[in-house]
């Protein structure tokens, strides 16, 4: 492989917003940038008497700021929204101090490191501490983590397979009865939950499990099994950094999807569609503006229940943004301009 292509692939993998793997985080792996929003989230608002307070614990990243802006917009007439910046090296005392000084009716916790810190705070609190409900957003595989926390509700960050595949079916003029996915063992539970949900849409999720550290040969064999032997109608690429290394992209993914019969590939990060070499045809990613509105809706529900959470604790994100590779989608998969209004971005 020439060095320039390797560099491109390395950048791709680094920019993925990868979800699974040591030290990876869906939010912080993205490039930090100043907020495009008008208000500074960390300026304290004038507190109004009688208005419940929502404490937001968050890092300052484009994605978290987008969620924050939407959340605050929805809440501000009914709640005072007070926000605290949580850096990666923040001490747990920062959380204790913020909760003590703000006295929130509920707390919004954004991203993995912030959740880890909040968990440390809870574990260090006296056993009889009454924690306000926390709404967790933008963290990886929240359902797996939620059981270890007290009084936590939230919205998972992974876009459900059923939402992605049903939307994909509306964009393509071809059958969508079997979708293939390669995964490692640690995501078996997640895959099973997705499989159940896709059944309702008459879509079979065909999965092949690989080892914890597969090499290119093992991954290529798994992909061939799905594409050639099982004849899946699309491939779903999980945001798992172990399966998306530059070497695996070059030696397994690209050859497997560049066969004689092109297959639509759905990815969870825009860079895999937008940057060359384009692995994905369709990127379906969480809509951060809608995620903020969904979190606000959850807070209104909590308020209606006097901040005593009942019912389902972890929701799935309901809204997605779709980015497509226009050339591929048009050339191979029947995408036409009449469908342009149903996608958010077409990369040419």
């Amino acid at each position, binding site marked *: 492989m020439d060095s320039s292509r390797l560099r491109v692939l390395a950048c791709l993998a680094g920019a993925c917003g990868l979800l699974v793997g040591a030290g990876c985080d869906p939010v912080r792996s993205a490039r930090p940038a100043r907020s495009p929003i008008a208000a500074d989230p960390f300026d304290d608002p004038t507190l109004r008497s009688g208005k419940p307070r929502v404490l937001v614990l968050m890092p300052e990243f484009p994605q978290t700021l987008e969620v924050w802006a939407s959340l605050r917009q929805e809440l501000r007439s009914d709640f005072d929204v007070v926000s605290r910046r949580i850096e990666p090296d923040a001490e747990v005392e920062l959380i204790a101090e913020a909760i003590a000084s703000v006295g929130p009716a509920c707390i919004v916790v954004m991203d993995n490191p912030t959740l880890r810190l909040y968990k440390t705070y809870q574990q260090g609190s006296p056993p009889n501490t009454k924690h306000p409900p926390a709404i967790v957003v933008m963290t990886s595989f929240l359902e797996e983590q939620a059981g270890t926390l007290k009084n936590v509700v939230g919205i998972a960050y992974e876009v459900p397979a059923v939402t992605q595949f049903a939307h994909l079916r509306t964009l393509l003029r071809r059958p969508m009865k079997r979708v293939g996915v390669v995964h490692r063992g640690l995501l078996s539970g997640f895959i099973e939950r997705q499989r159940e949900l896709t059944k309702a*849409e008459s879509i079979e999720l065909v999965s092949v499990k690989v080892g914890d550290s597969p090499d290119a040969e093992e991954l290529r064999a798994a992909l061939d099994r799905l594409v050639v032997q099982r004849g899946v109608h699309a491939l779903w690429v999980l945001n798992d950094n172990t399966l998306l290394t530059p070497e695996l992209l070059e030696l397994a993914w690209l050859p497997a999807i560049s066969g004689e019969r092109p297959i639509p590939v759905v990815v969870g990060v825009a860079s895999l569609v937008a940057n060359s070499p384009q692995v994905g045809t369709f990127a379906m990613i969480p809509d951060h503006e809608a995620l903020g509105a969904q979190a606000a809706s959850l807070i209104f529900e909590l308020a209606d229940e006097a901040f005593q959470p009942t019912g389902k604790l972890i929701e799935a994100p309901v809204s997605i943004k779709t980015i497509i590779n226009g050339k591929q989608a048009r050339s191979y998969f029947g995408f036409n301009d009449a469908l342009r209004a149903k996608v958010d971005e077409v990369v040419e």
Partner: protein
Amino acid sequence: MSRRRFARWTISAGAGLPVLTGATQALAADLMLLVFVPTDARVRSFEKQLTACLPGVNVRAVSRFRDFESSLQSGTDAVLTLQPVLEQLKLAVSAQGKRKGGDSKEPYLLVSAGAPVVPSTVGKMGAVDILGHSGMKSFVAQVSGASPKIKSVIKIEDLLPLLQLQAVDAVLMPERYLPTFQTNTQLDLRPVRVGSAGLPALATLTAQGRSIVPLVHRLTASINAQMGVSEWTVLG
């Protein structure tokens, strides 16, 4: 006359167009139209379509009620939004969108997956947020006759995932979207007809904004169809 208006007037007149036409276009040049009408198209795409058939009008479309509220405070000459939104904000209707036959309201459905629901027994209902949290409670009660917990979304298409993920018992939506939903899903959708709600309408907020009113007749059939409108009636 601003430089921009003057330039537009000069170009129109210079092109041999009647002076009056040039002046009319010039008047429209600095007009602001704020739009909040949920459709099944992306908001930027919808804005682009509106801009194309309203030359000289600065169209800004937003997808959320709260954005609409805050944009209103920033100032605009006219707004195009659903009639219940105008009613909540106490804005007078200058032009009303109507269905074929002249009805200014459209029928709504309560749609569930698997088994039909009795509206009064629905515990959790999905709906597009057109009025904010408290306004939606009244709207849902008025249209569906129920007082459920409301799961608000910001796009019409997001109602379908609520059913796919079993996050609600039913979703409330205009009847005209049912065929699209049926095309887009294999779920066994069960619609129950409930009440009706007002179609999009135009309200003017400034004296200048009145010149936007007749322009509703320029909206294409495609744009009107996306809003559930067949014709427009200019009032007053």
